[in-house]
């Protein structure tokens, strides 16, 4: 039978947040790219919460932007409210979160795709991954069409064999009633890929006209808005914002839920997938935190041009009638009309330990993956993986070295390392506590950490890179100046210190020393610093943080140095763990599955003990002696 046959460089399966970034990266790096989606109208869809960023996720978006990704720029153009979280805490945990106009966000991202050269959008369901000699060679569509490609990137999100459930109603669809992808799993299994089944959920959407806001607290955005992208002019984002609203569940809500638990598919066993602990359904919260009298409920707008409101905090898979009663028991929602029910969704994804830290399948060269398909959750996590998978697919086709971002460089590194190294039994969400070196991995310095890499890869323009170099130089000079300039214990200084409730000086001190005091701020210093240069805010912010937290930063840098030493000890790809005597069986199994690239990564695998690491090191040393070459650099 005749069928369409095309030749491209890269085929991206799925056009969600991971797929969009992957496709854009490949096309921008000069490769002919095709991206497949079950519906062109669902490109960059936000089927769950209407916001981007948040604690640690805001970091991810800034990092993505610093590397040359798109999400930050698109949300800067389509947000309707913005807030910097944790501002009362240290600079490392400040995190940006924006409410998106969902429809606008999708439309804007789709337009970026459409305007990108070498990027082709195709509506269709991919049913088969084609391989040749153990390498990815293209995809086949449900229609029979074949796209030959030198690299394939899987970003299928929650669509694989998706099933949506509430009560005893279940339908085999993807999110929002979209068509599921029911065939690809079998092709992946045939390639020997191990699959997991995960579950997640979303709350109801309510008609905003039927909400009594007088019973809720208004949640406004920040007065001064900070953009996500380092390329966005801050003046362009100072726009009128819309509000969110806060209310609480009541004892009546909890009673309704408790008396209907037997009708929940979660508790009856109708749902098999593993759900995330950090994103529990409201029935889960009521059961697990029985002593809590009430839970917060955030009412968030879905966009400027719709009255639909998202009910944050109350995702559920209870039957429709229970949902109605439950939402109506919340103050302010007594007469609410529900537009879309809450539901749980089950889907196929992979065990990500089958991936290298480059996000390429260890078994199948040229096959990459990103996003929820890899067992993560969240738009931001997905986008970051999509970008890294896209970059590395491109690097491979261009004959250049693939990139690995490590834990000390970025939250992206933590995210990917956790996914490919640790056992993961639920959708993985980024959290600040997962990062060991977070004082270094701040959202405010993402450009300094990653833009040089983005430039090297080819996604950052020379102009942007040189701007960064200039910024770094200004920071360096100003820090040096503050360390050098001394002020004596004279009357002016003492009066200045007293004004800011700081203790007086006994001997002369540098301006940097004064700035280190917790109550001091950089801007105060100009009162005693006549020659303070007029520097942009992005520079003085870095100067202030670097000086104020110098001691802590240095401690972390030392930890990073030790961490890097273990990362540099590489493990050969073809190492046969069965050959190593006195390695415990459990360790052999774990190591065989994960195939760590370095001793550092091996030491993070759960189930591999320090003793196993010693054994591994000796074995490698022995091999080195046999082959006469060193596996790692001598100190």
């Amino acid at each position, binding site marked *: 039978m005749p069928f369409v046959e095309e030749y491209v460089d890269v085929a991206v399966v799925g056009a969600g947040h991971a797929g969009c970034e992957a496709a854009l990266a490949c096309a921008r790096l000069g490769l002919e790219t095709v991206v497949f989606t079950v519906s062109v109208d669902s490109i960059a869809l936000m089927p*769950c*919460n209407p916001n981007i960023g948040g*604690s*640690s996720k805001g970091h991810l978006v800034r990092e993505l932007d610093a590397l040359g990704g798109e999400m930050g720029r698109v949300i800067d153009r389509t947000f309707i409210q913005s807030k910097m*979280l*944790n501002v*009362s*805490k*240290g600079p*490392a*945990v400040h995190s940006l979160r924006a409410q998106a106009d969902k429809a606008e966000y999708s439309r804007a991202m789709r337009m970026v795709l459409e305007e990108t050269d070498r990027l082709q959008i195709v509506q269709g369901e991919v049913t088969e991954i084609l391989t040749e000699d153990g390498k990815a060679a293209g995809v086949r569509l449900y229609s029979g069409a074949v796209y030959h490609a030198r690299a394939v990137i899987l970003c299928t999100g929650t669509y694989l064999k998706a099933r949506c459930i509430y009560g005893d109603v279940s339908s085999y669809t993807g999110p929002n009633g979209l068509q599921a992808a029911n065939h690809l799993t079998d092709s992946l299994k045939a390639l020997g890929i191990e699959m997991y089944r995960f579950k997640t959920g979303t*709350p109801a959407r309510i008609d905003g006209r039927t909400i009594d806001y007088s019973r809720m607290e208004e949640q406004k955005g920040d007065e001064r808005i900070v953009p996500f992208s380092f390329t966005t002019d801050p003046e362009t984002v100072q726009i009128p914002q819309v509000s969110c609203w806060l209310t609480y569940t009541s004892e009546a809500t909890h009673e309704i839920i408790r008396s209907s638990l037997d009708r929940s598919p979660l508790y009856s066993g109708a749902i098999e997938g593993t759900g995330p*602990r*950090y*994103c*529990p359904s409201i029935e889960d*919260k009521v059961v*697990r*935190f029985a002593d*809590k009298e009430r*839970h*917060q409920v*955030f009412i968030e707008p879905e966009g400027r041009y719709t009255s639909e409101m998202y009910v*944050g*905090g109350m*995702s559920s898979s209870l039957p429709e009638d229970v949902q109605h009663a439950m939402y109506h028991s919340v103050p302010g929602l007594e007469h609410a009309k529900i537009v879309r029910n809450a539901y749980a969704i089950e889907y196929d994804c992979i065990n990500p330990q089958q991936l290298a830290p480059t996000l390429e399948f260890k078994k199948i060269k040229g096959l990459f993956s990103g996003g929820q398909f890899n067992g993560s959750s969240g738009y931001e996590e997905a986008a970051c993986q999509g970008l890294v998978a896209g970059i590395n697919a491109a690097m491979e086709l261009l004959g250049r070295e693939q990139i690995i971002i490590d834990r000390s460089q970025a939250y992206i590194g933590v995210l990917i390392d956790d996914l490919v190294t*640790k056992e993961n039994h639920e959708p993985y969400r980024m*959290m*600040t*506590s*997962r990062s060991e070196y*977070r*004082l270094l991995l701040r959202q405010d310095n993402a450009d300094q950490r990653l833009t040089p890499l983005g430039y090297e890869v080819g996604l950052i323009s020379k102009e942007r890179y040189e701007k960064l170099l200039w910024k770094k130089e200004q920071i360096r000079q100003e820090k040096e100046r503050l360390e050098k300039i001394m002020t004596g214990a004279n009357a002016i200084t003492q009066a200045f210190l007293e004004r800011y409730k700081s203790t007086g000086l006994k001997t002369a001190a540098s301006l940097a020393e004064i700035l280190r005091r*917790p*109550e001091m701020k950089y801007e105060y210093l100009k009162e005693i610093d006549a020659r303070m240069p007029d520097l942009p805010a992005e520079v003085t912010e870095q100067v202030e943080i670097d000086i104020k937290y110098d001691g*802590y930063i240095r*401690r972390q840098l*030392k930890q990073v140095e*030790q961490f890097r030493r273990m990362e540099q*000890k590489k493990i050969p790809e073809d190492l046969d763990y069965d050959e190593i*005597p*006195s390695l*415990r069986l459990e360790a052999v199994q774990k190591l065989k599955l994960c195939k760590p690239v370095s001793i550092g990564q091996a030491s993070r695998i*759960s189930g591999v003990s*320090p*003793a*196993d690491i*010693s*054994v591994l*090191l*000796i*074995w490698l*040393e*022995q091999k*080195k*002696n*046999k082959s006469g070459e*060193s596996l790692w650099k*001598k*100190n």
Partner: protein
Amino acid sequence: MKSDTIAAVATGMTGAGIGVVRISGEEAIEIAEQIFHPAKEGKKLTEQKTYTMHYGTIVDGEEILDEVILLLMKAPHSYTAEDTVEIDCHGGSYVMKRILELVIRTGARAAEPGEFTRRAFLNGRIDLSQAEAVMDIIQAKNEHALRSSVRQLKGSVLRLIQKLREQILYEIAFIESALDDPEHVSLEGYPGRLGEKVDNLLKETGVLLIRAEQGRILKEGIRTVIIGKPNAGKSSLLNVLTGEARAIVTEIPGTTRDVLEEQVRIGGLILDVVDTAGIRRTEDLVEKIGVDRAKESLKDADLVLYVVDSSTPLDENDREIMELLKDQRVIVLLNKTDLPMETAPEMVEEILAVPTVAFSAKEETGLDVLEELLEEMFLDGKAVFDDEACLTSVRHRAAMEEAEESLKKVAESIALGMPEDFYFIDLTDAYEALGRILGESMGEDLVNEIFGKFCMGK
């Protein structure tokens, strides 16, 4: 701050008199330089060649701990392929432990079981045959070392440390959940609450460290210094206690010039006795060294036995000695009660409010009273000395001290008004330090605790 230089007793804490303390890492030579006084004045270790030996003493402040031979090996020509210093000590296990403690205080950290070997492998110092041999045993060795060190912790102390860790983890998880989900979990008023909790935790680590000290006393003996005017009968006392004529006893004042060390058992207690040259003003330089040492050894003493010749009146020398003893735990032994008494207990007690025992070294009377007094003083009639409640290993103690130090830093950060996320750093250090005692690391503990205890998210 953990340094990357490690130290341990390399020969095992056996009863043998000679042993080796090994220091390895970038700062090994610098650390040794700070505590080693070469016999040849002005010799600098940092300027010496690799594979050289150096004779001298290990000093803690002004106190001489031991006469040693020091072996210097520079990277990569050592077992670990790092700068390494080995200190050959002669002073027995007690002195070795003190030297190790001193090395740790000076900047090294206690080595984990098998860590020297691990570094040796890491740095490519093990050849083929060695590697094969060690490989077969290392696993057993590491696990055994860990098991045996955990086995040292029994019952109450194990539970105490676990409880401490649980409390710390709860606080870390609380802070983290608030940072991850600031709209659900509030830190309002939290620093004050944490401050109180940290104070309580510090009390508990304090108790554990005191118990560690008591455990040391029980295991290694009470560091006891015998002091008194020349010829008051100090050496005779020692001889009575040991039942041997070890110290040279003569009628000539100042005969005992060296500090002698002896272990004596009295009832259920061990005294680690140092006999000193009699304290008195002296022009004799050689003797002066002995006097200075005596003063120095008072610093570390758990107990001072002050021997007074009761057949002569108290004089200026006695008053000077008693001045030295003001802040010490002292028992006064009124010796020579076989002779007519010139100095009565009351006369001593007037100056120094401490118990006195009438005693005769010659007739060996008064020992039973001394024994009772010691048990009252150190055993307190109660089971504080329960072996199970003590941290006996140097590694455990060092880890506990590290945990205490980190908790203090948390208190400091709270006092300074640092943002809450900074507490995380030191709380985590404390948690990890306590974990090293139990052989556990953070791993997935934190994430599990956050999800288990705090309600988060959409």
